[in-house]
């Protein structure tokens, strides 16, 4: 099967065509090697970085932004959100601080400093 995809790795947004009938799959249309990796991954096990917000328990009306330290399987995005929504943190927090470990194979880390 041939699939047409837009590479989302960088803003250039190359249109990829992935032929999955052959092994390994053949990617065309990419302007750089990252596009090839993306094309194959997207057709086999698509992954996404999830970004979200987490409530700061000891500050009024304050949220801290967080993200998965690495991309997670696309089908787990909503389960990952549920984990994040169940959790709160206490300030101060700094960028890169782990707030949850081992969520679908990665950690949830803070992306904004709260004093």
């Amino acid at each position, binding site marked *: 099967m041939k699939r047409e995809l*837009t590479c989302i790795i960088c803003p250039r947004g190359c249109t990829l065509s992935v032929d999955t009938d052959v092994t390994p799959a053949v990617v065309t249309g990419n302007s750089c090697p990252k596009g090839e990796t993306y094309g194959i991954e997207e057709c086999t096990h698509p992954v996404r970085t999830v970004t979200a917000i987490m409530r700061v328990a000891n500050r009024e009306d304050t949220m801290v*932004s967080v993200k998965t330290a690495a991309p997670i399987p696309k089908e787990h995005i909503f389960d990952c959100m549920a984990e994040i929504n169940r959790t709160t943190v206490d300030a101060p927090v700094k960028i890169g601080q782990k707030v949850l470990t081992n969520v679908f194979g990665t950690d949830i880390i803070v992306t904004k400093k709260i004093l």
Partner: protein
Amino acid sequence: MTEHDIVVIGGGPAGMAAAVAAFDNGVTDVVILDRDEHLGGILNQCIHNGFGLHKLGRELTGPEYAAVYAEKVAERGIRVYDKTMVTAVSKDRIVTAQNKDGMLEIKAKAVILAMGCRERPRGALSIPGARPAGVYSAGTAQKLVNCMGYAVGKKVVILGSGDIGLIMARRMSLQGAKVEAVCEIMPYSGGLTRNIVQCLEDFGIPLYLSTTVAEIHGKKRVEGVTIAQVDENRRVIESTKRYIPCDTLLLSCGLIPENELTSSAGIAMSGITSGALVDEYRQTETAGIFACGNVLQVHDLVDYVSDEAELAGIGAARFVKGTLGTFETIETKPENGVRYVLPQRVSLGRNEDVSLFLRVVKPFGKVRFTVKSGDTVLANAVRLKAAPGEMEKLTVRAEKMQNITEPITVCLEEVQ
């Protein structure tokens, strides 16, 4: 009245990068005036990732990208006047501002305008119907959700497919809302293709092109909207009207550079970009006043904002040191398929490469851009596709800039 060598107005990505570049180019008396409590501007509410790939070589979220530059500002000891609102700038570079200590007047040797942009207000869109609660600009909703943790709505329709609208479609979905539709009045999206993929397609959100919100329903709170297709003159086609129940309408209908200070100062502006007219170092037509970032032209990537701000920072530093030089300039002009070219004029005789930034008038397939002066070709580039939502950059090499006498034009032609 206090005095500083360089005053930067705005502490977002443009202001921070400009201040850092000015400092690194030998002018240490640089101050930033920012109306907010924290540096970073709009990046603080852009919690999604995708920032910094070009500039920093890694993919960061907005707050992380802002922190990289805030750190650079702090390391250099650049003074930041926070919670300070600039109320006027004059052509002789006196900056007037207000903060909790009262009124502030600063005489600057150079001023860098970096006020950013704001969303096109809803009033400008004149949608018929009541004015119930539940109608937000996409950016306001983004701030409410991402910074304050409010749930803005449960069933959402978004009008406008610019990047903020797309990003908010994904955010609302992730927060548990149902996004019923994104409507775009134009026959193409104004956002980056990658955002259509990862914000709409990933979540099964339909994008309706040539479609608008014809009416808002509800008295106290939004109860629904009528959407409809539009003809080529953007008039509603009655027979296509369709009701969608929803409790929230987000408007993402474009950004406007925030140039009240610039125009009140009497600085020459462009009718197309709604920003100042500038040269290659982003100096406006008023000597010693520079502009960069979204106040100059609305960018789609923060990485390019930082690049542009660095040019302005270098230019301002050289102006203060007296090394910027004054040259004869030549105009740049958009032609055939190109909406604008920035900078709008370029100095002759600098012996440096010059990058031209531009946007096209509508989506194209494969195109060749040609930069010319009279009949002389200065540069050309082929792109597999071009769209109004994606800014293009073309560079003219220093040696090609010699002996130019006619305006620089940029045009495109479709190629097979």
